[in-house]
């Protein structure tokens, strides 16, 4: 699994830690750019919107939900497979996971944070968002646990907590490594981060058990989170949203885009952090196969959705369907079908699965497709509900578009910070995959 020969334990430490300990100007420039983009494209428009009201966005009487919510779903989706994949692969202990999962989990964490931000942006009175948390308040009033949105609140907070614990515990031994490789303040800091980890057999043993349990908990959690997100839509009676298939549809879509996201992230790690020798063909190939499978499932469910609404034959569903397939946003819809259903079929060919650049392109296209999918769900169903006289139209305003762009910058910023604070690849687990050192070797 190592393209460029097997490294020694020491080399592993050196390679991976150097990313953290040695910082060039290129990094700072990159960080500066992403940060300023985030501020200019995301936070400034948001601030403006806070002052004038949500009317700054393009939403109206016909579409009360807009890109903010569709992006929220997109980011939640992206967050999937990070932790989920890592957990599954850990349970099934497949070795190729070990060099990938740390960044994957980081991806989960950061896309979750971005998603949470979008909820804030979406709210009409975000300054009262705390009312939706189950905390005692002077009004003596608690949130409505019968509301699908409360399922969301609970699920996402749980997911955020669980996955951050998961990633943290996984990196404790590596924090110890950082501690030992560094001096001064950083050393003191990582002394705390690593809980004074020594790497004794007992510690390893307990960590192993705890980690497995985290994994066991995280898998059903991840599944529940996105099905719950789907219920925000499916539990309404809006034609085009009121589908039983939505939960599996969203979960599968989420893992799909998440996995594509991992490919993209891996590409960057490999390219910019010189992890060629740790992230190799085998990972790419496996992920490629996984993506392929997911794309097929996704296409199938997508067809099912159209089919069931057509087969139901109610005027409402048919109208929604008609608008989706032939209405104003039809081009977007077919673009999505192209990117998410047909392009991935290329991965049937090893030629594509084994080429980093091709895979990068495919993975990005898939996520573009998934982004539009979420938008279509929001933008085509709401404006055409039950009363034709109230039919309308929704088009995002420049503020929404800019905030959407900004969110990617936020994600990038968080990731850039991450690689300087946490070993982007799990040191000890990479070592595990190496053949043990023997005298005769």
């Amino acid at each position: 699994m190592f393209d460029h020969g097997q490294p020694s334990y020491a080399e592993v430490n050196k390679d991976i830690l150097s990313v953290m300990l040695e910082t060039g100007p290129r990094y700072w420039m990159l960080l500066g750019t992403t940060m300023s983009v985030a501020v200019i494209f995301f936070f400034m428009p948001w601030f403006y919107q806070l002052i004038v009201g949500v009317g700054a966005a393009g939403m109206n009487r016909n579409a009360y939900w807009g890109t903010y919510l569709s992006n929220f779903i997109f980011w939640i989706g992206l967050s999937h497979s990070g932790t989920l994949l890592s957990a599954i692969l850990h349970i099934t202990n497949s070795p190729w996971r070990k060099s990938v999962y740390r960044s994957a989990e980081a991806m989960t964490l950061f896309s979750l944070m971005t998603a949470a931000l979008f909820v804030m942006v979406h709210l009409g009175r975000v300054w009262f968002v705390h009312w939706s948390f189950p905390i005692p308040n002077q009004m003596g009033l608690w949130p409505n646990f019968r509301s699908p949105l409360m399922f969301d609140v609970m699920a996402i907070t749980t997911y955020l907590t669980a996955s951050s614990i998961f990633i943290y515990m996984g990196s404790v031994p590596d924090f110890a490594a950082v501690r030992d490789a560094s001096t001064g303040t950083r050393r003191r800091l990582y002394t705390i981060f690593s809980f004074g980890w020594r790497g004794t057999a007992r510690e390893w043993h307990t960590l192993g058990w705890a980690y497995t349990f985290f994994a066991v908990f995280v898998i059903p959690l991840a599944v529940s989170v996105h099905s719950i997100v789907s219920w925000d839509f499916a539990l309404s009676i809006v034609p085009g949203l009121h589908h039983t298939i939505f939960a599996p549809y969203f979960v599968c879509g989420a893992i799909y885009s998440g996995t594509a996201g991992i490919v993209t992230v891996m590409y960057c790690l490999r390219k910019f952090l010189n992890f060629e020798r740790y992230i190799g063909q085998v990972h790419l190939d496996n992920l490629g196969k996984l993506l392929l499978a997911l794309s097929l499932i996704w296409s199938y469910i997508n067809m099912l959705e159209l089919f069931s609404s057509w087969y139901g034959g109610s005027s409402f569903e048919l109208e929604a369907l008609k608008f989706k397939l032939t209405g104003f946003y039809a081009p977007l819809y077919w673009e999505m079908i192209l990117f998410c259903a047909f392009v991935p079929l290329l991965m049937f060919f090893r030629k594509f699965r084994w080429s980093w650049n091709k895979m990068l392109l495919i993975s990005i296209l898939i996520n573009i497709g998934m982004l539009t999918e979420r938008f279509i769900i929001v933008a085509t169903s709401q404006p055409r509900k039950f009363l034709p006289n109230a039919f309308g139209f929704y088009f995002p305003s420049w503020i929404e578009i800019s905030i959407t762009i900004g969110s990617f910058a936020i994600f990038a910023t968080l990731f850039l910070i991450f690689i300087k604070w946490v070993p982007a690849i799990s040191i000890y687990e990479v070592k595990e995959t190496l053949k043990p050192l023997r005298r005769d070797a």
Partner: protein
Amino acid sequence: MSKISRRDLLQYIGAGGIGAVGGVLYSESIERDVELIIPQVVPPEDYSPGIATWYNTVCNQCSAGCGISVRIREGKAKKIEGNPVHPVSQGRLCARGQSGLNVLYNPDRIREPLTNAGQRGTGNFYPISWDEVLTTIASRIGRLKIENNASRVRLLTGRVRGHLDELFAQFMGLLGSDHYQQYDFTYPSALKAANKISFGIDQLPYYDIKNADLLLSFGADYLGTWISPVHHSLAYGHMRQGRAGRRGKTVQVEPRMSLSGAAADEWVAARPGTEGLLALGIAHILVSDGHYNGSDRDQWSDVLQAYSPSAVSAETDISEGNIRQLAREFGTSKAALAIAGGATTAGTNAVASAVAVNALNHLAGNLGQPGGIIFNSDQAFSATPGTRQAGMQGILDLVEAMEAGEVDVLLVHDSNPIFSLPDGVGFRQALDKVPLIVALSSFRDETTEQADLILPTNTYLESWGDDVPDPGVGFPVASISQPVVTTLYDTLPVGDIILSLARQIGGELPMAMPWRTMEEFVKERWREEYAMRESGGADQDFEAFWQAALEAGVWGQPGVMTGDQIVPSSSSTIAAITNPASQFAGSETDYPLVLHPYLSASLLDGRGANLPWLQELPDPLTSVVYGSWAELNPATAEDLGIREGDVLEVETPAGSVKVPALIFPALRPGVVAMPIGQGHTSYGRYARNRGANPMDLVSMQIDDRSGDLAWAATRARVRNTGERLQIIKTDGITRTLGRQILGPENDHA
């Protein structure tokens, strides 16, 4: 050293953690007795922040004269509702009436007397004191009076009724000028003229829609804009579902479906201008098929000879069968009523058409009958309504006089001829010849902008007065209007202005008009009224009566059928029946379409355009708000390759305007319809520079018999400018798409 620091750090953390926990526990422990503030999901019993008082007065938003009750809280008017005891509105009120609050609290009201400092028409006005402005005017008029040139003083008002009307008349009379005239665009002058011809009674009769079984309306949007919409609506509701097992039917004849057309069971789009002909065609069948057999049957058949169904069908473009069926229904129904209004009475054959429609009423024998036409005797009340409506002829005379330089002082009150008349009339230009123009108005409308002096008047919600609904309701009734709030700004009631002018002008005026205020005057007149009716009623009785009247807002004698219901002979009608086709300005070749301007249901003739509530009120049939549009039948639009939102240039011999096109299914092909009301160049922030005024398109044409403006007799052509303009409307898709929204398919009814 790192050892120590590490240990210390860990200790700090431990201590910090313990401290935090302790702090939380402590704070929790001391916050035990905090009261919980529970939001008032259900407000507590008997909780009301204030007491509302209701004042009854009269609505002035259109000519109907509905009685209204205004809800007052802390001295501010909060809501206008119909006055339950008032026979016209009976507690109900239309959108326009309820928007009266926007008149009262309009941000663009004139708040103090203004002068244009000699630069007329520039739109620059400067504040001036009441004393100064009144003295100026008084001295000017006084001089003319002394020179016996009082006839050079003209007074033009909008619709004014009750004793304010009498006050104006008295004032002008004492001056020695008989040039006091009213002009209200919506006043059905032609109909009145026709009724005079047909029935020999110079008034608007009461149309008893309530008890009718078949209402045949020729162009009259009786539910929206015609005469007394609220009262008609009440009647309509009762006619439809108020009588068990007896549902009245309505038929609407008009080229563009109006509110009443939408409500009608049958909508008949006769060729514009031939509605009267259709009426005659129906009359023909009524007589020939023996639905009518009065003594004068023969005269009828003679005069109606020419209007055989076939001939009429050819002219009106209504199938013969359809005409026959209408006639049958009209002839056979117990109480059939025919009314004429709108475009039907706005052609060059307006009176002829109205007479033709009256003929139907004759033949239906509904005169003086329930469900028919009921005549109000004119001694209903001392202030007889509507007699001074000059009609178009009066305006033309005035314009002529102004052009001839015979007018030194023009007093304009509550009337906006510059906006509501075609430019062809030349009113605006004639004004240049008038040395002094004085506007008594609450708003700076187009005409007021031309004035030299603006005397800001109180709105009707701040003024005293009284009113006699026109037409009456079948029995004597009069309403009192009283101020419901204190005057907001440095303005005066128009009556008080006239009185103080009278005082300052001097001569016999102060003697003859001794009252300080309008209130005094009105009360005085009512005292006389009371004395006249209750023979020798003592004063304290009157005070009681007056109080009661003020509280009720209305005085009337229900049940007292006014006069003996004389049934006018049909002879005059028969004699008056003719069939001149409406003469359209512009040749059919150059102008293939017919222009159909119609009164906006919300803005009426434009007087409502400065009220935000009405601007934001979707048009009943198109749901369009803000701005105006030109309607085209889908077929016509397709021929011309026009889509909704294309900016059209509508051209007529009189002029052209640019408006976005709207595809309207219920419009006769070959007709372009435009709502009247928008297109103000002034009149406040909500009205200014919005939409187009179809009056700019109307050619100056006169109905030959009443001299009334024939505003529906102009041909037009449209050109697609290629520009696009979003029409703001609330409608999405206006088809049910098979969804059972208007009720289940299986028909119970």
